C-alpha cells in the first residue's frame, strides 16, 4: 500500500477551509489579529507519541500560520523523572501510590533544571499536564499569563500527590480541563476545553469507498453484511466482553459481524490477558473479528470505522472518548455508554444513543439496524456536532478566545 500523505503533511490553516468553511477560518484570523503583539509558549514533556504531542504538532503550525509568535518547549528528564511522573499520573487518576521520599525531590530537581534551561519569557504560557507543573515556581517580575492545561482526570487524586502539587497549581492564572467531571475544587478559574480530532489526519481524512473495502476485506471482514465495531485498547474498562454479549443478543435477529479492534496488548500485561479473555469469549464464531493492531494503524482504523454500520463504545469508565468523536465525524450512528465525556458528544436520540447496560446496547443496536434512515440522521447530526465543537480548529479558537479573555481581564 502506498504511504499515506496525511501522515507527514505540512499544516496550513487554509487546508481546513473545505472542512469548516472560509468564514470560520476568517473568524479565527480575526481573533488572532488581536494577539499579534503577544507571544505564546507551550511546554509539555514529549515531542512525539501521546495525545498532547499529537495536538501540539498540529496546533503549533496553526499559530505560526496566524503570525502569532509561538514556541514549543519539551521538558527533558532522566528515566528517574519519568518514573516519578508516571507514578504521579496514576496517583492523580485515583490509583495507588508508592510513597518514596525522594520522588518529590526528583520532580522538583528536574523542574528546576528545565527552568534554568528553558526561557519562559512569552506573554502567554501554557503548561501541559503535571510533569512541567513546577516551572511556575520561577514566575516572578514578569507580566506573563500562565495557564495549566490538565489533560487528565483530577476528580479523585491521591491526596499525598495532590497536596504536593496543588501549591503549584494555584500559582497559575487558570486551569483548563477536558471535562467538568475531571475538575477539582480550586481557588483559580477553571475553564473547559474539549479534546479534539484533526479531520485531515490519517485517522480521519476522507477515504474512497474502494479503499475502505480493500482494507477491511484484508482483515477477512465481509463488507456486504452489517458490521458492528468497537475501537479501543484491550482494557476491562472498555468492557469488550460486554460488547461480545451485546453482539450475541443482536445476532439472534440480524446476520451481522463484530469487530473489536485496538492495541495495547503487546506492551501491557493486563491488555494481553484481556485479549485472551476476549478471544475465549468469541470462541469459534467466524463473524467476530478481534484485531490487535500496532500503533501505526491510523489508516486501518479510519477504514474500519468508515466500513461500520454501527459503532459501539460500551466503556465502563471513559476519559473523553476520542474514538467516539472519530466515529461521529465519519457520520456513523453510535451506541455508547453514558460515562465520562461521552454524553457531551452523544446527545441521546440526537447524535447517537446512550446506554447503561449490555441489554440496552443490544436493543439500541437492533433499533439502528432496523431503522437505517434514522441511523443516517444520527450520523449526520453527529458529524455536525463534531464540526462545530470537537475539531482542531475549534480547539485553536478556544485558545485564542481564552488568551483574549485573560489579556482583557488584566
Amino acid at each position, binding site marked *: 500500500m502506498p504511504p499515506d500523505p496525511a501522515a507527514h503533511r505540512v499544516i496550513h490553516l487554509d487546508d481546513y477551509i473545505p472542512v469548516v468553511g472560509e468564514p*470560520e477560518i*476568517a473568524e479565527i484570523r*480575526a481573533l488572532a489579529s488581536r494577539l499579534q503583539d503577544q507571544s505564546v509558549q507551550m511546554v509539555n514533556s514529549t515531542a512525539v507519541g501521546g495525545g498532547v504531542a499529537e495536538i501540539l504538532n498540529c496546533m503549533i503550525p496553526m499559530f505560526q500560520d496566524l503570525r502569532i509568535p509561538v514556541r514549543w518547549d519539551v521538558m527533558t528528564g532522566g528515566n528517574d523523572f519519568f518514573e516519578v511522573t508516571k507514578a504521579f499520573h496514576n496517583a492523580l487518576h485515583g490509583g495507588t501510590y508508592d510513597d518514596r521520599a525522594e520522588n518529590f525531590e526528583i520532580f522538583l530537581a528536574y523542574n528546576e533544571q528545565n527552568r534554568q534551561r528553558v526561557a519562559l519569557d512569552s506573554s502567554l504560557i501554557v503548561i501541559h499536564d503535571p510533569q512541567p507543573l513546577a516551572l511556575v515556581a520561577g514566575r516572578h517580575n514578569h507580566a506573563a499569563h500562565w495557564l495549566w492545561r490538565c489533560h487528565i482526570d483530577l476528580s479523585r487524586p491521591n491526596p499525598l500527590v495532590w497536596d504536593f502539587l496543588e501549591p503549584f497549581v494555584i500559582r497559575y492564572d487558570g486551569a483548563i480541563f477536558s471535562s*467538568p467531571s475531571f475538575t477539582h475544587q480550586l481557588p483559580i478559574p477553571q*475553564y*473547559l476545553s474539549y479534546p479534539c480530532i484533526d479531520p485531515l489526519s490519517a485517522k480521519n481524512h476522507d477515504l474512497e469507498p474502494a479503499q475502505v473495502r480493500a482494507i477491511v476485506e484484508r482483515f477477512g471482514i465481509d463488507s456486504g453484511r452489517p458490521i458492528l465495531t468497537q475501537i479501543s485498547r484491550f482494557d476491562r474498562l472498555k468492557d469488550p466482553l460486554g460488547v461480545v454479549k451485546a453482539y450475541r443478543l443482536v445476532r439472534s435477529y440480524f446476520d451481522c459481524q463484530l469487530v473489536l479492534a485496538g492495541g495495547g496488548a503487546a506492551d501491557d500485561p493486563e491488555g494481553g490477558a484481556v485479549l485472551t479473555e476476549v478471544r475465549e469469549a468469541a470462541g469459534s464464531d467466524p463473524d467476530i473479528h478481534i484485531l490487535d493492531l500496532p500503533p501505526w494503524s491510523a489508516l486501518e482504523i479510519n477504514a474500519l470505522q468508515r466500513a461500520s454500520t454501527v459503532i459501539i463504545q460500551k466503556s465502563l469508565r471513559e476519559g473523553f472518548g476520542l474514538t467516539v468523536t472519530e466515529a461521529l465525524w465519519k457520520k456513523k450512528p453510535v451506541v455508547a455508554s453514558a460515562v465520562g465525556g461521552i454524553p457531551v458528544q452523544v446527545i441521546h436520540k*440526537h447524535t447517537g444513543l446512550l446506554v447503561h447496560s449490555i441489554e440496552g446496547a443490544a436493543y439500541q443496536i437492533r433499533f439502528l439496524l432496523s431503522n437505517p434512515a434514522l441511523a443516517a440522521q444520527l450520523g449526520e447530526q453527529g458529524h455536525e456536532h463534531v464540526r*462545530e465543537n470537537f475539531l482542531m480548529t475549534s480547539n485553536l479558537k*478556544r485558545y485564542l478566545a*481564552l488568551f483574549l479573555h485573560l489579556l482583557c481581564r488584566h
Partner: protein
Amino acid sequence: MKTARDPFRFSTAAYITRVCPLEAGSLAELSEALERSSDASIFYHTFQSLHRHHFLTEGYSNDFAQWVLAACNCSELAERLASFDIRDYLSLADLRRDFCWAVRDYCQTYPSRAEAPAFESFDFLEAVEVAVPLDLEAANLREFVEVLARLSHASIYFHFISSRLRLHLRTNDFSLWLERNLGLPSLADRINRIDIYTHTLEGVQRTLLDLIARQGA
C-alpha cells in the same frame, strides 16, 4: 438605494466555557442549583446551547430539558422546560426564574421522582463572551447582503440571537438596523420572526438572504 445614517458594523464572538462548582444529581438538586446559578450559567445552558447545537432542529431546546429527558427520564418536565423560548425573555434573571419555578413545581407534585438519582449528573457551566469587531461594515442593503453571505455561524449567532440580551429588546441587531437605518420595518419584522429553534444557523442565514432578496436588495 438608501444609505444608512450609521453603517452596520459586523462583529463576531467566541465563547470560553468556565466550570462552576454547581452540579445536580437529581431533580431536587437541579432545583436548588438553578436558584444559585449565575446569569453566565443560564446563558451557557440556554442561549449558548442553541449555538453549540444549532444543527439540531428537532426537539433540542436547551441543556436543562435535554438532561431531564435523557438522564432523569421525565418527559413531562422536559417538555415544559423545552417550551421556554429565549426570544420571550429580556433578561437572564427572568429566564432563570421560570426554570426554577417549573422544576420546583414538578418536584413538589412528584416528590419521589424529585429525589431519584439521575443516570449522570448535570454540571453547571458558564459562558464568557469574547466579542471581536470584524472590520466589515455595510452602509446599504446591497453591501449588507454581500457581507451577510460570508458571515460565520458565530457572527450570525452574535447578531441574531445573543444580541437580544444586549439590546434588552425583543429584536436582534439586524432587524434593529434595517428598521432604524434603512426604514424597512416590515422586513425587520419578518427577519425577527425567523424561528431559531427550527433553523440551523445556515438556515437562518439562507432565510435572511432570501427575505432581503424578496425585498429587492
